[in-house]
């Protein structure tokens, strides 16, 4: 897997590079701002981009805007965003258009090396990865307004894990239930949320997230 890292803190950029190299990724470039990131992506056409939301010169959402542009121009490149704090708009922005090969993690999650690598692998494999905290906040925001209130506690747990990007096998392992039970919950969730049967897994996650984000 060929990866480009975009992170303005030299310390963290170097740490990420070493971590990814340790794990067998090929880091083709490591840059420090949004404009350079887009330029580097156009030159190297990597498989994956790991980018900080906040980068120079404005230190606001430079990285996110670069990511949105990368997803528009090269939909096949996976993008994993790292953010200082939960910002729902960022998640929604990222999901607009193609809803796959995308992730949004809190920066602190990088310290949980295992979880971070797992999320990165998921995005690299064409899936999605959303920070549990992001999902929790999205769920909390909409819980008291609509069909979500009709979900049972178990179904909410399943939706939560699903929104983070886990597949049914992974959810079953996490919740200590059988895979068929998970499938049953998932079908029930889609029924309750009024979502039509869709073909791919990540498409369903996208649908859920979009639904939550609106």
């Amino acid at each position, binding site marked *: 897997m060929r990866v480009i890292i975009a992170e*303005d*803190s030299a*310390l*963290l950029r170097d*740490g*990420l590079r*070493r*971590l990814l190299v*340790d794990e067998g990724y090929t880091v083709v470039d490591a840059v420090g701002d949004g404009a350079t990131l887009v330029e580097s992506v156009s030159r190297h056409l990597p498989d994956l981009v790991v980018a900080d939301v*906040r980068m120079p010169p404005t*230190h606001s959402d430079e990285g996110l805007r670069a990511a949105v542009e990368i997803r528009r121009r090269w939909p096949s490149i996976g993008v994993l965003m790292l953010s*200082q*704090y939960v910002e729902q708009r960022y998640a929604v922005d990222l999901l607009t258009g193609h809803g796959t090969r995308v992730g949004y993690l809190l*920066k*602190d999650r*990088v*310290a*949980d*090396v*295992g979880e*971070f690598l797992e999320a990165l692998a998921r995005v690299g494999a064409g899936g999605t990865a959303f920070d549990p905290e992001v999902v929790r906040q999205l769920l909390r925001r909409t819980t008291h307004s609509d069909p979500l209130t009709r979900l049972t506690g178990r179904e909410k747990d399943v939706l939560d894990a699903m929104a983070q990007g886990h597949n049914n096998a992974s959810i079953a392992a996490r919740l200590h239930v059988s895979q068929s039970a998970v499938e049953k919950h998932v079908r029930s969730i889609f029924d309750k949320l009024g979502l039509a049967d869709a073909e791919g897994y990540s498409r369903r996650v996208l649908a859920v997230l979009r639904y939550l984000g609106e």
Partner: protein
Amino acid sequence: MRIWGAVVASARLVWGLAVGALTAVATLAGLAAGGIVLAPALAWPSAREASMHRLARTVLWLAEFERHRLYRLFGDAEAKTYRGYGPERALAYLGVRWPVGLLGGGILLLFVYGAGTIVFFVWYWLTGRYPDNIPPSPWIITYLAVACGFALFLGVQGLIGVVRLERNVARRFLGPTPADLLRVRIEQLSATRADVVAAVDAERRRIERDLHDGVQQRLVALGMLLGRARRSGAAGDEAKSADLLAQAHAESREILDELREVAWRVYPAALDTLGLKDALAGVAERAPIPVTVRYDVPDAPPAPVVTAAYFVVSEAVTNAVKHASASRIEIVVTRERKTMTVRVSDDGGGGADPAGAGLTGLARRVAALDGRFAVISPVGGPTEVRVVLPCA
């Protein structure tokens, strides 16, 4: 040149008094004539409004003329700012002012009379005649000279008094009323309050950035090092694991340093425990270039003044190091009777922008304490930041 300037200023004052006397006569005549013409006109309601309007315009015009005279000929800078006094106050002003103007004119006439008498006597004596049949013996001349000097002194005092009286009358009737002053003060306070809120917000933003872009990044990097160490350990690579742990340990120390730095920038604890002098010494010690501190304040100023002074110095030193590439900095803090002055000067490249974020924040902080803030920084240097804070 200084003497010449004084002569010009005196001549201008005399000219101003002369003009004032003429306008006093004109005002008196105008008021009398206005009374005679207006009194019958007021009987007819149809004519009343028009005449009142004309009167108001004339009165305002005259008051404006006087105001201009005070500012131009008496050098009364305050008079320049009087406005919005309205026809009623202007009429009251003109009614009270004309005797003052006549008084000034009277004293000027006495001067002319005195000067004429002196010329007359001297001319007679030079041509060998005695105007009052008394020969000019040295005693007589001394007596007359002393009398003239005394009269001159009284006259000059009178003129100075009239000038002062003119100014006071104008201030009393045309100048801002206590309500006006209060309103101006309230506007000023509202502005500085809003500025302080903005300055506090800017500081919070800076602290947030210090935390998120500094400390948090380091903590994530630390976590990553520890995570990698654990993975290496689990994979059986003990040497690599130990190496990564050593790196993590070093990193944790750096984080502590950084955290201390940020906390210090938020509020230096030394201000409370050690006082301004030692806190400034701390600023000087931490600076990477030589900084000399001259602290000449006998007793401790009020806490808000201390805090403002500290942040001014701290920001100015940071700027000098970061932007002006200075090689030395001088900090001077002195205490006058009711104010404290802080000066920070460097030998750097100058060209500091007073509208920049940092300096604006300082200016607002100082303005909130009714202090004065100035940045003198020509391109090419040197730069001096000067702050005067009231310590009443």
